[in-house]
């Protein structure tokens, strides 16, 4: 008989190996999935996981995809550690893009070097304020933040449509629901002749800051303690309500910033197709990175790879777009399943009593 036995000291090796095992298991399951879809499984895996790494253009696209994923997942990871579940990052991402984008449009034709920082600030504030709604309702009325933040995703999506169909619509745009293209002063600078924008540098900086805060600062300690033992956190003098505001506000700000980078970077305008699910994929990224900033950096890159490889596979193999979502969902399942190994050891016991 197999049984579970709690680990007294977690094994660092297992902690590192778990996400890698989960990725491998997902690839194996992916082989089955692709075969079931009538595609050559080995070729599909090669196209998705290997080819993009050897192509400079694809490599730069991976960075672009990873940027919002890393930023959002970093924010979410603090709350997830503390047991505060913001799953409405998608909505905060949209609201950040709207707030920052509105600033860009307001200064149409009147930009300067101050415009981008102002937009970034507006984006972060927009996302933060939107995330503070579930925080406030949780603190004041005890309303479940999971459900409220998720409902607000749908509201944000509709609000975006309302804005780009109404006040923010491009006056020269033949009634299409989209804004003007942003001025050059409102576009993120890029590295060399690639499309890789400054946002990825900000994401890297955020990873570094988050790592320091989590492991060396009282706030990070408070987050870890709140998740590990809520009553001990109260005993340590950590105010649960402030924690809720801080975690939701922080994740909202980062999601908002990610949204702004997306519209001021690769997209260049506000449009209804802005929400593509980064806010949800970032949940997977956060867990794949084991809620640690460095882990999230790598997880974001892996997830960016599956997006880019998936797009190529769609094009080359006519693989359905949804196959990549399935793939990402499976990854999270395997991750949660193997996570058991970090907390428990599996031991074989002697058979029952004689």
């Amino acid at each position, binding site marked *: 008989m197999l049984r579970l036995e709690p680990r007294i000291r977690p094994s660092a090796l297992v902690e590192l190996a778990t996400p890698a095992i989960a990725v491998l298991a997902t690839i194996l399951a992916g082989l089955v999935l692709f075969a079931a879809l009538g595609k050559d499984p080995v070729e599909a895996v090669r196209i998705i996981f290997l080819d993009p790494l050897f192509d400079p253009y694809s490599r730069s696209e991976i960075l672009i995809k990873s940027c919002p994923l890393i930023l959002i997942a970093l924010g979410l990871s603090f709350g997830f550690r503390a047991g505060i579940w913001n799953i409405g990052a998608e909505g905060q991402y949209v609201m950040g893009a709207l707030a920052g984008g509105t600033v860009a449009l307001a200064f149409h034709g009147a930009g300067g070097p101050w415009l981008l920082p102002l937009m970034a600030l507006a984006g972060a504030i927009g996302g933060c304020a939107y995330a503070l709604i579930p925080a406030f*309702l949780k603190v004041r009325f*005890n309303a479940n933040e999971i459900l409220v933040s*998720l*409902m607000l995703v749908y509201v944000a999506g509709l609000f975006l449509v309302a804005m780009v169909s109404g006040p923010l619509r491009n006056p020269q745009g033949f009634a299409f629901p989209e804004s003007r293209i942003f001025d050059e002063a409102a576009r993120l600078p890029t590295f060399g002749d690639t499309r890789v924008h400054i946002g990825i540098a900000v994401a890297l900086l955020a990873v570094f800051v988050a790592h320091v805060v989590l492991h060396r600062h009282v706030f990070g300690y408070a987050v870890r303690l709140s998740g590990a033992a809520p009553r001990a956190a109260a005993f340590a003098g950590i105010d649960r309500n402030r924690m809720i505001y801080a975690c939701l506000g922080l994740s909202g700000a980062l999601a908002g910033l990610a949204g702004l980078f997306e519209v001021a970077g690769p997209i260049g305008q506000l449009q209804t197709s802005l929400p593509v699910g980064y806010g949800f994929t970032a949940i997977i990224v956060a867990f794949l990175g084991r809620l640690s900033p460095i882990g999230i950096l790598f997880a974001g890159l892996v997830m960016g790879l599956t997006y880019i490889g998936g797009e190529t596979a769609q094009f080359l193999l006519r693989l359905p777009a*949804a196959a990549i979502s399935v793939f990402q*969902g499976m990854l999270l399942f395997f991750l949660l399943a193997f*996570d058991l190994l970090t907390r428990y050891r599996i031991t074989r016991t002697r058979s029952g009593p004689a």
Partner: protein
Amino acid sequence: MMELGINPVALFAGLVVAATPLLFAAIGELVVEKSGVLNLGVEGMMIMGAVTGFAVGVSTGDPGWGFVAAAGAGAALALVFGILTQFLLSNQVATGLALTLFGLGLAALIGQPYTGIRSPQMPSVFIPWLSDLPVLGRMFFRYDPVVYFGLFLALAVWFFLGRTRAGLILRAVGENHDAAHSLGYGVVRIRLAAIAFGGACAGVGGAYLSLARVPQWTEGMTAGAGWIALAIVVFSAWRPGRVVLGAWLFGGVTILQLNLQASGVAVPAYYLSMLPYLVTILVLVIISADRRRASLNAPASLGRPFHATG
């Protein structure tokens, strides 16, 4: 049926139909939560039910088989959650989210060939005399059998939880799993059964969307209905009767906003479409504000992992 101006009889009939998917999903989740498990994957199980039900309904030409298949698909997906949370002790919140993300993706994948097809017709029940009644007939006696089955299921769950020994055991497991274990009840087994039941219900609810209410398959067609069902369980304070009420409330809001859109109110459609989501938030706030009452009714072991030692 979208007349200009709002006809209360049609509104009620529309409400009952719109409420049915929510009713199924919420009543199933209620049983799951009563056993002490929080499954946030309702949305994913619903959409899997929607696509499976539609695919089987279309290929057999019989919506009945569609519903059966949807229940199976919902239960199968729920059991993935069950195995992860009950045997591998994964975090219930994270696993529920994973279930939703995975379900949405898999449903989109399966559903691709079915986009744009109409489903086979669902026959309405016709009760001689009663269905012909002028107002009452339309309000109560002209629905398809699934609507009645949903109401029957709510009644059956009420009876099961409150009046049977198995229901008592299920509640006991949700209330205090350690005590239930020490009395010799199989906590994990009971919870797995509840989780599978919840999945089957969510699957049927999803299939009702694609086979009866809409009726066709579109990607992401549940549009948050699974999450609203979770909110209805909170609203109901874990009482089956109030689940019906909650489902009708949200069905009513949905129908009302559609009617308002159709009646050409000056408010743009996207603002009206926000209504069900905003009402959900409002209801959550009102119900949760009384902390003491909220915590008195909630199953005490809700969401806590159980690992038998010894």
